[in-house]
């Protein structure tokens, strides 16, 4: 067993001693049992084949004590409702409109405790993924957002998770539960950022539950820079005719690993899942996505793109699993990658696992330089080759950002993107 679990065991035990909530204590104990019984991943562990966890085991992680102060991501004048979590603790939130409630595990009264018990027992019951069960074992805070049936929010919810400089050598497990009721519609923006300069280990789990006919536009943006390890997951369950449009972005940090699992549990559900990863320096970014088509007549469209620079490494694993009765499924996945240096590496594996015959499934993956005819078009207009390549790399990613429905999110991300491809003056935004 790895060092990380030895230190984690102490933390877990301290936690357990500090609570009088029997159910929670048992629930964490179950998480701990699963975590400690899972063999520590090696190169031969399929799910971790390309992502070594060395950078987790060389620090003496402590559970975070909430004390920090940090701002996080600011969307300027975008009218929104922001909930700010510093080092995993909710410190501030805007007034909530009717139909939206937010409850905290740490401040649960008897009634809320009962509700949490039901909610947490329901989800991820058979979960074995290493860092989900770690989150369960270490859980100190869960933020539970409920959007009542029929509620149509005109402003986005911004969940602003930020790590302060006080969090050095801390592990921060947070769970976010978002339930979108029948026919409700909402936009949820999750941002992760940091002020910290020291090593941190962030372990967030987001669970999205969309009831029948619910619609959610979702952003999950990992913008932390520096010595950050971010190992977490997003699980979404879609009811009948529910619609989830989920966008992901990762850049910066020592190690980022995100497991995205979407279950189609009601017929007619639709999913759009897009993402972008941009590791550079010695960064390592790993997205593992799984689409579970459990019922017939559902649709999934997934596009992930990445550019890997310097000595960085990107891993992508996109699995589409069509269960036995999921006839009439439409599922498509595209993963494209660019390497911009001889020391960079990408490992990608799009997987299809199909047990129903009347389905349309396709995946494609490429690792390549850009389109030669596009490059020639630039050259034929007098643009220098280096600059043309920078612009095309930018375009390769920007194509996905351009499609974002919320301009303020695009305005937040595009400068980050430009900064990464900054060699060409041509990337200045023009009205």
């Amino acid at each position, binding site marked *: 067993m790895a060092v990380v679990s030895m230190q984690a065991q102490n933390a877990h035990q301290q936690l357990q001693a500090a609570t009088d909530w029997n159910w929670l204590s048992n629930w964490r104990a179950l998480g701990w049992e699963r975590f400690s019984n899972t063999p520590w991943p090696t190169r031969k562990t399929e799910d971790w084949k390309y992502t070594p966890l060395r950078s987790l085991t060389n620090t003496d992680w402590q559970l975070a004590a909430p004390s920090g102060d940090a701002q996080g991501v600011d969307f300027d004048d975008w009218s929104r409702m922001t909930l700010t979590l510093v080092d995993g603790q909710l410190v501030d939130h805007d007034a909530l409109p009717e139909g939206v409630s937010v409850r905290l595990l740490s401040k649960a009264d008897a009634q809320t405790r009962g509700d949490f018990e039901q909610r947490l027992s329901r989800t991820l019951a058979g979960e074995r993924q290493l860092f989900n069960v770690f989150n369960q074992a270490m859980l100190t805070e869960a933020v539970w957002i409920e959007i009542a049936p029929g509620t149509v929010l005109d402003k986005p919810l911004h969940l602003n998770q930020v790590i302060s400089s006080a969090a050095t050598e801390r592990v921060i497990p947070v769970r976010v539960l978002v339930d979108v009721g029948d026919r409700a519609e909402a936009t949820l923006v999750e941002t992760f950022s940091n002020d910290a300069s020291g090593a941190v280990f962030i372990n967030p789990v987001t669970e999205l539950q969309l009831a029948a006919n619910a619609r959610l536009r979702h952003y999950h943006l990992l913008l932390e820079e520096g010595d950050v390890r971010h190992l977490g997951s997003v699980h979404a369950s879609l009811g009948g005719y529910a619609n989830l449009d989920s966008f992901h972005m990762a850049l910066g940090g020592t190690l980022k690993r995100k497991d995205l699992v979407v279950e189609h549990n009601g017929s007619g559900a639709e999913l759009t899942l897009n993402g972008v990863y941009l590791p550079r320096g010695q960064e390592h970014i790993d997205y593992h996505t799984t689409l579970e088509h459990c019922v017939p007549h559902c649709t999934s469209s997934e596009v992930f793109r990445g550019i890997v620079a310097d000595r960085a490494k990107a891993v992508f694993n996109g699995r589409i699993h069509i269960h036995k009765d999921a006839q009439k499924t439409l599922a498509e996945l595209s993963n494209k990658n660019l390497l911009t240096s001889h020391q960079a590496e990408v490992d990608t594996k799009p997987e299809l696992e199909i047990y129903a015959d009347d389905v349309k499934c396709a995946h494609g993956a490429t690792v390549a330089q850009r389109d030669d005819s596009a490059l020639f078009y630039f050259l034929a207009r007098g643009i220098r080759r280096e600059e043309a390549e920078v612009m095309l790399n*930018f*375009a390769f990613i920007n194509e996905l950002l351009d499609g974002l429905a919320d301009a303020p999110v695009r305005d937040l991300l595009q400068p980050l993107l430009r900064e990464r491809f900054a060699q060409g003056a041509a*990337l200045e935004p023009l009205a």
Partner: protein
Amino acid sequence: MLKIDNLAAQVEDKVILRGLNLDVKAGEVHAIMGPNGAGKSTLGHVLAGRAGYEVTGGSADFDGQSLFDLEPEERAQAGLFLAFQYPVEIPGVSNMEFLKASVDAVRASRGQEALSSMDFIKLAREKCQAVDLPQDFLKRGVNEGFSGGEKKRNELLQMMLLEPKLCILDETDSGLDIDALQVVANGVNALRSPDRAMIVVTHYQRLLDYIVPDYVHVLAKGKIVKSGGRELALELEKQGYGWIDEEVA
């Protein structure tokens, strides 16, 4: 301005051009006509320096410089402009960014300062109007989702902004209806000047009703087999390309 001497070129081991000669002086408009597969589009791509189009013999002198010694972008900076038959779509790069990068590069090579963003935007909008393209095309990805006619007008827009010395129009009429053809032709005619030369490559005489050439050349089997004035085009229109083949054979 452009003197092509005995040019031979091939694409993937297939010989396309076999000893082509052409002399184009400033202010002239030359039409190059010919049957499909004669090498018309190859000529434009070879002159612009597309990878995969290999020059195997001959020379091309462009304003005292040997064209084939230059990189494609250097040729563009030197004032050679190829209007593509099928302009490629580049999603993710806005037309505006692309145009500015291009104009900046060409200006820099002439020792001119880059235009300020404000000035450039003003200029681009002005030219947009001239080619009858709505201004929101500037914000869209390069050629992304443009119709055939819009792509050609976008080529024309670039030509106006870059003010090249030599324009090569590669089958600019293909895929255009009469109205669109007229808009494009008017734009091209507006650019005719004593210091600028043009090579108009086309399969059909019809374009030459609108852009009237000084010289017409017939390209067949990789070389110019006949040259003449405007009347040659009309003759071709009447008789088709069949007689060329006979004459060449």
